[in-house]
């Protein structure tokens, strides 16, 4: 059967213009600048960079503006842009112990060396709408205090590790780090590959999975060993130079989760760990990632795999919101032919049922 698939060009062109018109909103209001988005919607920028998997504040701000604040659409735009760029190489692993931390907390030790630094957090707000912001958001600069001369901020994990109480993270296995943007994901996946997948993964999806482990679907009894947020240098070895230089300083959030211990008759018990890392300030994402990272280690730690968060294929195949949104939204594309064929089938089946019903009625009347 021939079905017309052309047409709608003018409607599409006008739809794009209407979209741009709605994006701009009322012309009586000033247009948003990228710097305003970067500075005043900073956490939206952080989320778009993290899940867009591309650290560039002004690009993420542009994506948010273009997407009218739809962050998953903005993430899609950023992912699409990155495919147009050449890859220069990979950085040296970032060293979060060199972080200039703006926030650093531990819920396992009160007196952690370097102290508990709250930084800018929603944790102590009362979640009451502040109507003064509706009128005027101007605020005085935050108070300051003398800075300790020592910049050292030891990791909580390192302290427990030295006592043998905490498992050390798997050491450098050598060889190039696998990269799912280069080589497609294969299962079972090594932990570095899983972490790359989770780092790009949708915050809502990981949050729900992490929550599910806390509610008993693969519980692993987590404590926040440490959360830190701040600036770290990025070292890169340019091919022309052959030695590392620092090419940038970026903000990252890190969560080292300390979990239920494992041990046996011969192996003394040790706490286990899950890890989360996100661009910018995104600690809900980093925590959820750490919970799911730990849950996905069930098999490695000889735990029963009974829950969704522990199921590697389920988690890794559904974490990406660009893929998920594409597949869900492709349902809006014309499926006229598919649906026509289903209509024919259903009509035929209905006719058959009707014919049988009439035949039965006739048979009964004849009796």
């Amino acid at each position, binding site marked *: 059967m021939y079905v017309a698939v052309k047409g709608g060009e003018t409607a599409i062109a006008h739809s794009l213009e209407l979209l741009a018109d709605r994006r701009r909103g009322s012309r009586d209001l000033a247009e948003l600048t990228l710097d305003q988005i970067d500075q005043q919607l900073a956490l939206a920028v952080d989320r778009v960079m993290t899940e867009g998997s591309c650290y560039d504040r002004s690009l993420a701000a542009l994506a948010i503006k273009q997407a009218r604040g739809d962050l998953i659409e903005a993430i899609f735009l950023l992912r699409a842009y990155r495919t147009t760029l*050449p890859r220069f190489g990979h950085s040296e692993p970032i060293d979060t112990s060199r972080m200039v931390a703006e926030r650093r907390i531990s819920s396992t030790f009160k007196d952690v060396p370097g102290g508990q630094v709250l930084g800018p957090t929603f944790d102590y707000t009362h979640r009451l709408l502040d109507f003064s912001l509706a009128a005027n958001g101007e605020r005085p600069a935050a108070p300051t205090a003398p800075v300790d001369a020592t910049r050292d901020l030891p990791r909580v994990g390192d302290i427990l590790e030295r006592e043998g109480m905490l498992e050390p993270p798997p050491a450098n296995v050598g060889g190039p780090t696998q990269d799912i943007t280069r080589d497609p994901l294969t299962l079972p996946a090594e932990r570095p590959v899983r972490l790359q997948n989770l780092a790009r993964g949708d915050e809502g999806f990981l949050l729900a999975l992490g929550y599910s482990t806390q509610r008993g679907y693969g519980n692993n009894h987590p404590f926040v060993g440490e959360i830190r947020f701040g600036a770290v240098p990025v070292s890169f070895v340019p091919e022309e130079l052959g030695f590392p230089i620092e090419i940038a300083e970026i903000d990252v959030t890190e969560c080292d989760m300390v979990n239920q211990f494992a041990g046996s008759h011969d192996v003394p018990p040790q706490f286990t760990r899950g890890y989360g890392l996100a661009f910018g300030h995104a600690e809900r994402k980093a925590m959820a990632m750490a919970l799911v990272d730990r849950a996905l280690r069930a098999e490695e730690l000889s735990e029963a795999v009974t829950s969704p968060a522990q199921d590697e294929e389920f988690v890794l195949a559904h974490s990406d919101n660009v893929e998920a949104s594409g597949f869900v939204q492709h349902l809006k594309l014309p499926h006229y032919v598919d649906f026509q064929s289903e209509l024919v089938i259903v009509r035929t089946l209905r006719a058959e049922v009707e014919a049988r019903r009439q035949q039965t009625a006739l048979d009964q009347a004849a009796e």
Partner: protein
Amino acid sequence: MPPMLSSDATLSRRQRWLSVLAKAPADRLEALWRTLRATPSYTVLRRPEIGLVMLQGRISGSGAPFAAGEMTVTRAAVRLESGQMGVGYIGGRHPRQAEIVAAIDALGQLPEWQRQLEEQILTPLEQEAEARRRGRAAKAAATKVDFFTVAREAGT
């Protein structure tokens, strides 16, 4: 001085200035670059080019590396008429800054330029970076928790 030591010292100086220049705000670096007088002309070997670097993290901060996500990077390369090649690699999309970094990198290899670059560009940029770092750290320091213990009566 043994030649090896000399080249190590040169390398670490170059490493330092390339890092300071790369982390400087693009407009600030351009303003400082304009204060230099009679800079020799250079040929652009690699026009500023924007690309990506895959950032690596480490499991639990200290374990095996993993691909944490990319960042945009701009690079450029120039050559002075006297032959020195300069390279610029900077985080973000700033073509002009990458070219200026490459030009300063080339100039820095000429002994007669080193003092001027140090005084007019590198020292101010380092001081400004340190001030920014301290400013941010000072606000964070004000949010450090002082715990106090509510002691119970003794002997209970």
